């Protein structure tokens, strides 16, 4: 999966020249109940358990240097999570991945280790797969796709300054919709990054407008920087 690292352990660079590494991981199953803040701590401890040479910031209160690209809401799953960090010396990427995976909880697993290519600021969009459990899947599918066709989708959004009316229409494209037994599967591409969009905002707007109800599971499947995958 990941390209082999040509550098050996001995070739230690001064820390300011050490490249940032990017870890791509999945957050599935029981890991969906872990909040973003708790994921940070879980990652720190897993890195420590794996005995990897993570770089600590200097100064009065040294801590592991790590940043996360696009924080995921509690309750969502994701196949495309990114975390950036720096090592004190470089190691083989495969080895990082296998050692860390052995130390991580079963439901959080790294699938690629690479150098950081784009800055997190480059993120523009993300893909989500929504599994909806409506009262009537076929009726939901038809009404929901029609709902998304409207020229404007106004809804109330809670902000720091109280409730605000926003238009959801420019924030997403409905890429697909199909029913599978009692469920309905939706695929969405949304704006992400600087301007973030939680897909359940859209389903909530639909429930409010239609009077229907249902349970929604969210899985993030990809993150983009412009036209390309974010790497």
């Amino acid at each position, binding site marked *: 999966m990941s390209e082999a690292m040509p550098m050996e352990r001995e070739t230690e660079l001064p820390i300011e020249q050490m490249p940032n590494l990017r870890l791509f991981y999945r957050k599935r*199953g029981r890991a969906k109940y872990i909040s973003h803040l708790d994921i940070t701590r879980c990652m720190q401890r897993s890195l*420590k*358990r794996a005995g990897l040479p993570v770089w600590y910031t200097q100064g009065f209160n040294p801590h592991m240097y790590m940043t996360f690209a696009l924080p995921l809401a509690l309750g969502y799953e994701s196949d495309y999570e990114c975390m950036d960090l720096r090592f004190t010396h470089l190691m083989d990427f495969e080895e990082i991945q296998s050692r860390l995976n052995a130390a991580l*909880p079963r439901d959080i697993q790294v699938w690629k280790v690479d150098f950081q290519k784009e800055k997190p600021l480059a993120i523009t969009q993300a893909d989500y797969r929504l599994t909806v*459990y409506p009262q009537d899947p076929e009726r939901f599918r038809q009404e929901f796709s029609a709902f998304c066709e409207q020229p404007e989708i106004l809804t109330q959004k809670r902000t720091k300054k109280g409730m605000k009316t926003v238009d959801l229409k420019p924030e997403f494209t409905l890429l697909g919709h199909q029913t599978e037994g009692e469920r309905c599967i939706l695929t969405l591409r949304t704006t992400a990054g600087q301007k973030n969009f939680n897909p359940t905002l859209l389903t909530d707007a639909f429930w409010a407008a239609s009077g229907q109800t249902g349970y929604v599971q969210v899985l993030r499947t990809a993150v983009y920087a412009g036209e390309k995958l974010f790497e």
Partner: protein
Amino acid sequence: MDQKTALEQLILSVQKPGRYVGGEPGSIVKDKNEVSLRFAFCFPDTYEIGMSHLGMKILYGLLNAQPDIWCERVFAPWVDMEEKMRAQGMKLYGLESFDPLDEFDIIGFTLQYELSFTNILNMLDLGGIPVYSKDRPGLKNLVIAGGPCCCNPEPIADFVDLFQLGEGEEMLPEICRCYQDAKERGLSKEEFLLKACQIGGVYVPAFYDVEYFPDGRVKSITPNRPGVPAVVEKRIIQDLSTAYYPKNFVVPFIDTVHDRAILELMRGCIRGCRFCQAGFLYRPLREKSAEVLCRQGKDLCQSTGYEEISLSSLSSSDYSEIEPLLDQLYDYTQENHINLALPSLRIDNFSEELLDKIKAVRRSGLTFAPEAGTQRLRDVINKNITEEDIFTSCRLAFEGGYSAVKLYFMPGLPTETMYDCEQIIDLAQQVVGLYHRCPGRNKDRGVNVTVSVSTFVPKPQTPFQWFGQDTLDQIVEKQLHMKDCITSKKISFKYHASKTSVLEAVFARGDRRLCDVVYNAWKKGCYFDSWDEHFYFDRWEQALQEAGLTVWFYANRHRELDEIFPWSHLSYGVSEAFLKREWEKAQKAQTTPNCRQQCAGCGANRLLARKEGKCVE
């Protein structure tokens, strides 16, 4: 929607879902078809509190180290979760398997504080298990309990099949083996319990009859089956260095009260503070060697990835190898980016070098527990701390840039007068004055002295077990008076809800007649009693009244020296003669030297197999 999705939706609709999902690193999942005993280790409080508890970590690791036993964790769900579970008919489950509680062979509770008793009933009920022992005729769903409150478990004797007195590392596996054997041979619950009560430390309450005098005092406690011991003696571990200690902890995802690696320096305490139940329950002192501690500390940090390690014991300064231990641990923790959390230590005889190292370690705020405001009263309780000790340490701390001090006191101690209470505030006032006279103080910041008071609760197996607690009126009067005595804005006064202390006192020295009170109060909606927002004293008063019992009888009444206590058949190694001696000395404000200075002959040394019964060198 399938079962799994329904559960997921439910969990995501409550606060802190992470409490209810398990799956943490270090948690142990086995195949239920490969084990012959399924054990549910239940902590009768929230996940965050239970997961901070060392005893649970030890026993979880110990039981799961047996290939044929699977031990899971169960905590009390918070009220929002419970409500949804009840609405959907979902049973309380083990966090590892998600299987309902009534599928487990043994349901084991740990009794850390009296106010968690009602949570036991609520958890059993939520797990689909009848709360009264008599309504559980079979061997399956055996309910057992361990922990410090077993020193007087009578208020819950009707609900629990078997109590474990003392330390569990040897006793609990013995109970499990006995159970597995009984299960295999198809023995009845009664047959199993008769065998189990032969195991040292095991107390089966149903095997004892209690008779009362017309005024409610206990007349006699007698075994009602042949072969049942008249007195049950607690179990101890002989050698802490060779005893089992987990190499790994379950590392929670969510924030818990104490989320770090813990090293247990020793059990027992040499001090003999007369109010302190733990000081008597865990006698005699047994230390773990520094070498073993260092190894266990490294193992734990490596397997958990924790960024902090703390030392646990009743009085860490008394640990005889504290200096070599800190010296070694300090180097290891520094190299590995681990914070070494130091307890408040008496540091007078440390080397310069170690002092310098320790200074570099960030320390939590400055706290002292003088417990009483006057030297006389501190002598009554045998608390070996003088005003001079406090002032010296405060001066050092102020010079070092500290400006906040927390002082803990315990109003309501035997022989206390209003003067003693006034002196609590006076002591705080003197600390404020000391700060202002301290040339090296941090001049940018004002001093803050917090006075935190919690009402004394007389506890069984201590020299104060004969003493009646202050009445609610007296407690409130003292608190208000102390508040009135404060003239400085630099002093903040914190006091604990007094009614919970009263209920704690009722349970602490209660008898079996309280079982129905516990049941009825629970039925009236009392549980999570240790949570102020969830405490309904009026419901408890009502339940007591309905049973014809009073708070006064249990909490406030002074007991005669020859009274038979509800726990007279339970021995913690410390002799009643010694406790009486200490009680008499207390009333004359006479102190007793600590165990290292001179053995006071408490009797706990009888429990030791080694050293010809000598507790300390």
